[in-house]
């Protein structure tokens, strides 16, 4: 039986009830893909342009421009492959300028399915590189791009999870060289539900961990509350409030093995009867190996 340490947090007030929203099915078609590509800045399709329908993605490719829509989520990814890293590549725009360029791009490229959606800056990340000779000191770190991350809010409530965000990539000269969006189109209100308070959600988390047999201490490193939006690969029909607990476990060093850390996340619905059902099973892969291994030397 394991205990989990949940830090006492001073949280901004959590509403007693919130609307639940349906989400529109993703609009993924050749026409939608071409429209996205043009809005993102691709020229009129050349004779070499092609659209590829894969198992998960529908991809438009024309020279260096690659735009793809995910068939389950409507997630979009865009790359301008003219941008590559060379020994001269540098990025030195400040964050304010980067955010302004990225924000203008999101609007101009009509990257969000919800007109008028509020863009909240979540952070400015950078692709970085460093190197050095074996046995020597590494050289200085070099910034190569900026990845400006915007998170979604719905009626003032933050959206949490691997979805509900846009990242716009900028090169050092301020050009947009890529973008990723996981931002499902909002549908109608699908009722209103009472919100479970943090103490009750924490109780559920404790009961989950009480059933585990853990080595070392489990502790919650971050708690988030908001509408939960899933990632690129998931079908989602409803946007509902949830708590996300990011958890780290550290198993102490034993004998010759060092202390080992691991990290996971528990997402606990913040309403009593969520409509969204997640199918958390992975299709069985046709593994090339038999179920049971016998050492070749013993055969």
């Amino acid at each position, binding site marked *: 039986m394991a205990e989990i340490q949940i830090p006492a947090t001073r949280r901004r007030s959590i509403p007693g009830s919130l609307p639940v929203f349906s989400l529109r099915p993703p609009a993924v078609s050749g026409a939608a893909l071409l429209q996205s590509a043009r809005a993102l800045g691709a020229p009129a399709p050349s004779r070499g342009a092609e659209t590829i329908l894969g*198992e*998960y993605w529908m991809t438009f490719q024309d020279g260096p421009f690659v735009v793809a829509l995910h068939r389950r989520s409507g997630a979009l990814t865009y790359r301008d492959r003219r941008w*590559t*890293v060379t*020994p001269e590549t540098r990025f030195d725009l400040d964050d304010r300028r980067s955010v302004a360029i990225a924000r203008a791009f999101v609007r101009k490229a009509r990257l969000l399915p919800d007109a008028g959606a509020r863009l909240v800056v*979540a*952070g400015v*990340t*950078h*692709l*970085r*590189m*460093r*190197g*050095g*000779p*074996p*046995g020597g000191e*590494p*050289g200085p770190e070099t910034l*190569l791009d900026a990845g400006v*991350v915007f998170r979604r809010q719905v009626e003032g409530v933050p959206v*949490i*999870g*691997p979805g509900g*965000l846009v*990242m716009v990539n900028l090169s050092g000269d301020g050009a947009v060289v890529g973008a990723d969006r996981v931002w499902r189109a909002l549908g109608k209100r699908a009722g209103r539900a009472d919100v479970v308070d943090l103490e009750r959600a924490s109780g559920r988390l404790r009961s989950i961990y009480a059933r*585990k047999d*853990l*080595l*070392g201490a489990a502790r919650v490193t971050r708690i988030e509350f908001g509408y939960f939006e899933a*990632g*690129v*690969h998931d079908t989602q029909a409803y946007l509902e409030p949830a708590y996300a607990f*990011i958890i*780290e*476990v550290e*198993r102490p060093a034993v004998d*010759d*093995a*060092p*202390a*080992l*850390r*691991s*990290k*996971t*996340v528990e997402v606990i619905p913040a309403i009593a009867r969520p409509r969204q059902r*997640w199918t*958390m099973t*992975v299709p069985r*892969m*046709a*593994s*090339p*190996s038999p179920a*049971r*291994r016998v*050492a*070749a030397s013993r055969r």
Partner: protein
Amino acid sequence: MATVGTEWIQDFHPPPGCNQNQLSWCAAGSQGFGSAMRNRGHTWNFDWGDDNAWETDWRDPSKGGDSGNTQGGCNSVNFTYLSTHGGPVKDDAGNNIGFLACFSAQHQRCNWSNTTSILGQSVQRWTVMDTCEALDLPSPWVEWWPCYFGLHEVFGFTGTSSDAWWTHWRGSDFGDAAGRGSVLSSSWLGAAYSFWLGDHPVAMSCGVNQADGMNRLFNETVFSGFPDLAHNQIGWFQWTWRS
């Protein structure tokens, strides 16, 4: 085309077995990679999970291991993917000197330390350590240089990496991109980076010098045919990450 081998461990055992905290999504990561590579025309030679995955598959014969065996040896395929617990091996002063990964079957030992390996001497070119702390910044080369004998590139994380439903697709996404010939480093960073969960993937290449290290890091694909470098030819390590 490349040959691929995958191993994953998520179901550990209480003492006297190999005891670690259970994981949940390692099979999905490793098998997702193997399956995606196969879908792109590459050959998925082996896939061993839990007690069928052995640390001897990674340990060099000169150290009593069996890394060349064709049934599951890491040196028998071009591209390996291992998903389990991992962390740095440290010296008495607390400095990182290697990398350790955990297995559930004590085929001989419960843990594999890469200080017992000679990677890349045969056909192995690329390896993914889908574990925590396999390429810890600021100097990830320290953990890998001693076993770099022809290996081209290592993919891993600095700090912790999540074991979660919401991120288990990274193996499949990486295999899909790598298998179709995209640049390996950007494919790994694109597949494995999670802003939300703070997963920070790292890709590291070696080269004869700085220019060669950079060229390999930002241009190598499974089809590009960069020449192998013997251990004593390595004059530089170059690594990239997003944070």
